[in-house]
């Protein structure tokens, strides 16, 4: 059980966030650049002092500002993988990986043996006696990961551990990581920028924006009911906020959306890009929401194309490359947009 209530001010950042994580749980912290994710991690690790709040891990109080408790970083059973790796330049790769063991009193020979096992697992055995300086970016990050995993902390804090890994290695390391993380009952808090990764790894997502937790829940909670534009962008859906009355949603921009759901009050309206249809001419028939727009950009994503359309409502549609050809869509071109009322899901804001 990790319970962290962290309040502090650092430069322009006012961090005021609560993070809870249960044993066995993998919590993924997501948020835009500068949201304070790294700072929150550092506070939990004991590297940045709190101004308010408390941190407890498995019942042990690590920080309690009110009672003046502060356990120093080195006495917290917490492993950290830093965003900038921070491998010791004067030690070999194996010494780096063995450092945590040595610090815990394991003798040189055993520490080295265990380090070598870890390097093996990360396919870095050949670099055991190299200096970190001679590693590539991705290799360095894998060493940092191995270093934090090599002793077994009860809480692992990982700051974008997979960012510098190439796509092919990433899958494997992620599986390795998942496997290893699964093999002990510790708590894992992980920062990643990759929403796919977040969804794949997370038991629970915590979304941090400007120092505050704006949403938390299981990946499917969060992806199905995003509550901020940032999360919506992340998940790749269109999100609007407004006031609903008998199926008619008045948006802040002044436009309205017709939905099939009956929910009154302040609501979010979510539209999946797949549900947004594009037409060359004003469409006939059932869709209740129809407006004219202008394509702002086209983005190939895998085997689909995301089309951002400006207009009365700015919205993103997802279509097939074939549709692009059929519609003769181009940047800046005119287009009609339609969304069926049944495709708009509505939930309380």
């Amino acid at each position, binding site marked *: 059980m990790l319970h962290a209530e962290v309040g502090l001010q650092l430069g322009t950042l006012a961090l005021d966030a609560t993070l809870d994580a249960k044993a066995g749980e993998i919590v993924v912290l997501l948020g835009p650049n500068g949201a304070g994710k790294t700072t929150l991690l550092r506070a939990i690790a*004991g590297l940045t002092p709190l101004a308010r709040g408390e941190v407890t891990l498995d019942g042990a109080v690590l920080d309690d500002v009110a009672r003046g408790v502060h356990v120093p970083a*080195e*006495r917290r059973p917490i*492993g950290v993988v830093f965003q900038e790796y921070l491998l*010791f330049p004067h030690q070999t790769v194996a010494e780096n990986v063995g*450092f945590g063991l*040595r*610090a815990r009193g394991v003798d040189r020979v055993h520490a080295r043996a265990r380090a070598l096992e870890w390097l093996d697992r990360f396919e870095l055995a050949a670099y055991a006696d190299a200096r970190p300086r001679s590693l590539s970016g991705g290799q360095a990050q894998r060493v940092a990961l191995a270093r*934090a995993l090599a*002793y077994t902390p009860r809480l692992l804090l990982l700051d974008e551990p997979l960012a510098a890994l190439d796509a092919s290695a990433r899958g494997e390391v992620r599986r390795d990581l998942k496997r290893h993380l699964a093999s002990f009952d510790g708590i894992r808090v992980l920062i990643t920028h990759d929403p796919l990764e977040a969804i794949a790894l997370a038991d629970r997502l915590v979304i941090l924006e400007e120092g505050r937790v704006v949403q938390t829940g299981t990946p499917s909670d969060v992806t199905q009911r995003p509550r901020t534009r940032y999360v919506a962008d992340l998940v790749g859906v269109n999100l609007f906020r407004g006031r609903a009355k008998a199926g008619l949603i008045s948006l802040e921009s002044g436009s309205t959306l017709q939905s099939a759901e009956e929910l009154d009050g302040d609501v979010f309206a979510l539209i999946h890009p797949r549900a947004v249809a594009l037409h060359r001419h004003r469409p006939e028939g059932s869709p209740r929401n129809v407006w004219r727009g202008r394509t702002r950009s086209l983005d190939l994503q895998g085997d689909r194309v995301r089309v951002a359309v400006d207009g009365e409502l700015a919205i993103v549609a997802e279509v097939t490359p074939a549709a692009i050809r059929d519609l003769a869509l181009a940047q800046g071109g005119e287009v009609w947009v339609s969304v069926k009322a049944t495709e708009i899901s509505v939930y309380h804001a």
Partner: protein
Amino acid sequence: MTPERPPLPVIIAAAVAIAFFLIPIAGLIARAPWATAVEELTRPEALAALRVSFVVSVASTILAVFFGVPLAWLYARVAFPGRDVVRALTTLPMILPPVVGGVALLFAFGRAGLIGPVLDGLFGIRLSFTTLAAVLAAFFVSAPFLVLTVEAGLRSMDRRFEEAARTLGAGRWLVFRDVTLPLIGPSLFAGAVLAWARGLGEFGATITFAGNLPGVTQTLPLAVLVALESRPEVALMLSLLLLAISAVVLVALRDRYLRLA
């Protein structure tokens, strides 16, 4: 890294500097009485001075490291009130003419000094005119060099490595020994060499505080000065001996220094 081609102005400035330092040394070598060198240098007084110098300079360097590194650490890391003033005051022995430094040491630790009688009364320690006094004199003038250099090293190192070590479970001491020290290696080495060098060449404070007793406090520089009174050739010879020792030590240590850097 691309091997650097040095720019011309740098070469010129460096060459002038090298020439300026080497010509006087060449002059010393040229004028030394090589014919009687062996005989002069193996006289018991010369050997005794060599021994005293070795003991004094090494001991004072060890003291400088043991006391100077904590001091530098305190100055670089702990913002205690009055730090700047204390630091300036402990830097002063570098500036004080050494003879005055010696007088100050006598005032403090002499038999009639401020705390000399206390030391004598409490511990039976009498410093003046002992080898320990020579060590302290050398320490007094040389330790500030180490402190300043190590502090600069500590200030320019990336402290996040220490944080990483702490999260790996290393306590203060381990962090210090296994991370901080190796990372400031070049500065510590440079500081120790500076302090050792200053201690080896020290004379003013030593002769004043510790006296000039052959075999006890007469270091090579004191022997040089004494010889300079009557037999300048011997003084030159002794100086060259001092130079040769230092040169050998410096070149030999270089290897280790380079590995650290």
